[in-house]
């Protein structure tokens, strides 16, 4: 396993553009979160300090940071599709197989890399959130701090799932740009299906079905936190309540998709003549 990871890391880290993209996708979100936690003086007019709003309180901070950080996953998605696209355009996939890498090992080396970077990202966000939280939060009891720790788990699963989807699209179309276009098409298709379902049945049922779709199920892992933040300000408005928790069935759905995408990627490669 380490051999396969080591192989893929060499391919990625020696390539300048993937190095830059990896840097952006991992460092930028944390930088943004760090910056936003500072006092910002907007042109001397007023001072913006998000910490004052209570958004950095435990346990809500877990929700907020993982939600924002996961928006930056798109940069690493480019890395994932290009690491497949490049293998095809350089024909190095062929050479790798000739040199004695099995098709299974080839896919697994990509998957391990995805897991590796997702893990790094998860660990990073854990520590950054923990330190910002400890600095700003009004509550610092261990039981409160670790209340919503499930968001960290959800963040990891979300990244692995999304990148596995990118891996599959990369293997399917062999070209990075088309693979990214496919992601966008899938996004549209999911909403079109939702529209068709909701006009035929009802929107409630349609949404429940949509929650099983690949992109939506990944999004659903970490729901948007804004409503929750507003809610925390106005606890009496029960109309605004929504289900923002990370449910184990949501994680299971995404894990199933992940397994399916990796398996399909392998099947594709196995049946393909290079």
């Amino acid at each position, binding site marked *: 396993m380490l051999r396969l990871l080591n*192989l893929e890391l*060499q*391919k990625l880290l020696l*390539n300048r553009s993937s190095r830059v993209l990896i840097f952006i996708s991992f460092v930028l979100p944390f930088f943004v979160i760090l910056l936003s936690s500072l006092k910002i003086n907007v042109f001397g007019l007023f001072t913006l300090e998000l910490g004052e709003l209570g958004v950095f309180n435990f346990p809500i901070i877990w929700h907020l940071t993982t939600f924002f950080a996961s928006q930056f996953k798109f940069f690493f998605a480019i890395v994932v599709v290009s690491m497949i696209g490049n293998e095809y355009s*350089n024909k*190095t996939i062929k050479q*790798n197989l*000739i*040199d004695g890498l099995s098709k299974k090992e080839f896919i697994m080396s990509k998957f391990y890399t995805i897991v590796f970077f997702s893990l790094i990202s998860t660990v990073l966000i854990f520590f950054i959130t923990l330190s910002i939280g400890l600095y700003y939060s009004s509550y610092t009891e261990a039981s409160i701090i670790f209340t919503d720790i499930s968001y960290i788990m959800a963040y990891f699963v979300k990244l692995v799932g999304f990148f596995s989807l990118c891996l599959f699209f990369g293997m399917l179309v062999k070209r990075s740009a088309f693979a990214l276009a496919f992601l966008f098409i899938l996004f549209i298709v999911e909403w079109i299906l939702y529209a068709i379902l909701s006009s035929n049945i009802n929107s409630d049922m349609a949404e429940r079905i949509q929650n099983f779709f690949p992109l939506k199920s990944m999004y659903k892992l970490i729901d948007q936190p804004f409503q929750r933040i507003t809610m925390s300000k106005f606890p009496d408005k029960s109309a605004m309540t929504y289900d923002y928790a990370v449910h184990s069935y949501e994680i299971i759905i995404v894990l199933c998709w992940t397994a399916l995408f990796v398996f399909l990627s392998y099947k594709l490669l196995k049946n393909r003549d290079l």
Partner: protein
Amino acid sequence: METILNIKNITKKYGSLTAVKNLSFTIEKGHVYGILGPNGSGKSTTLGIVLNVVNKTEGEFSWFNGSVSTHEALKKVGAIIERPNFYPYMTAVQNLKLVCKIKGVSFNKIDEKLEIVGLLDRKDSKFSAFSLGMKQRLAIASALLNDPEILILDEPTNGLDPKGIHQIREIIKQIAVNGTTILLASHLLDEVEKVCSHVVVLRKGVKLYAGRVDAITSSHGFFEVQSNDDTEMIKLLENNPSFGDIKVQNNLVTAFLKEPMKSEDFNKLMFENNIILTHLVQRKESLEEQFLQLTDHQ
């Protein structure tokens, strides 16, 4: 004798097109094999199948008597397919290190192999900065990294300039001298003739011949002669049962043998019939002529 590769009844279909049809042959250790055939005869497809990049439609093949799985066996094989494929943004050494990691061998052979192909002084240049000849030489270095049991080369001199072709051939000869088994696919016949002891001839995916190069046709060669009296000589040759076709071109008479005959016997025969030869050469058909005969007849 140790068998390296055994191919049995391999068939590959691309839709309605049959690229390789029921092909069988065996590669024994220590020989230099050539796979001959015009473009599109199924050479690369066959190599692709045994190298795990093309899926066979039917048939079986086994490496090293089937003792290991294909991808494990490929770690003991060195192969170059058509075009050198490396990561353009890595240097020569970085590319070779990657191959070492895949094959599971140590890095200490890298400099030695770069030396063999004459790229040691360019080892830290990016692959994208290499000329085609250098890329092909790097590919050979990469194929040699694991001191392979067999070296597989698919059109190794394709697209190279004469100097590049010469360099690659010298390297191949050097490797062959060291006793490495080589399988060379090419449509360049003189290339195969110069280095191979055995050939497999393919046309449209069908095997026409497999065996030693010198036994490719049952021909006994031919004499090229001139004499003081060509008309008399031709008459004599046509009546002699040892000879088949007689051709005259530019005052040079070519007589094809039906059975073995030594040149001194031929000379004696002519002299006894009062014909004095002014020119006598005994030759066998070149591989090219044999190859054309073989492919035309079927």
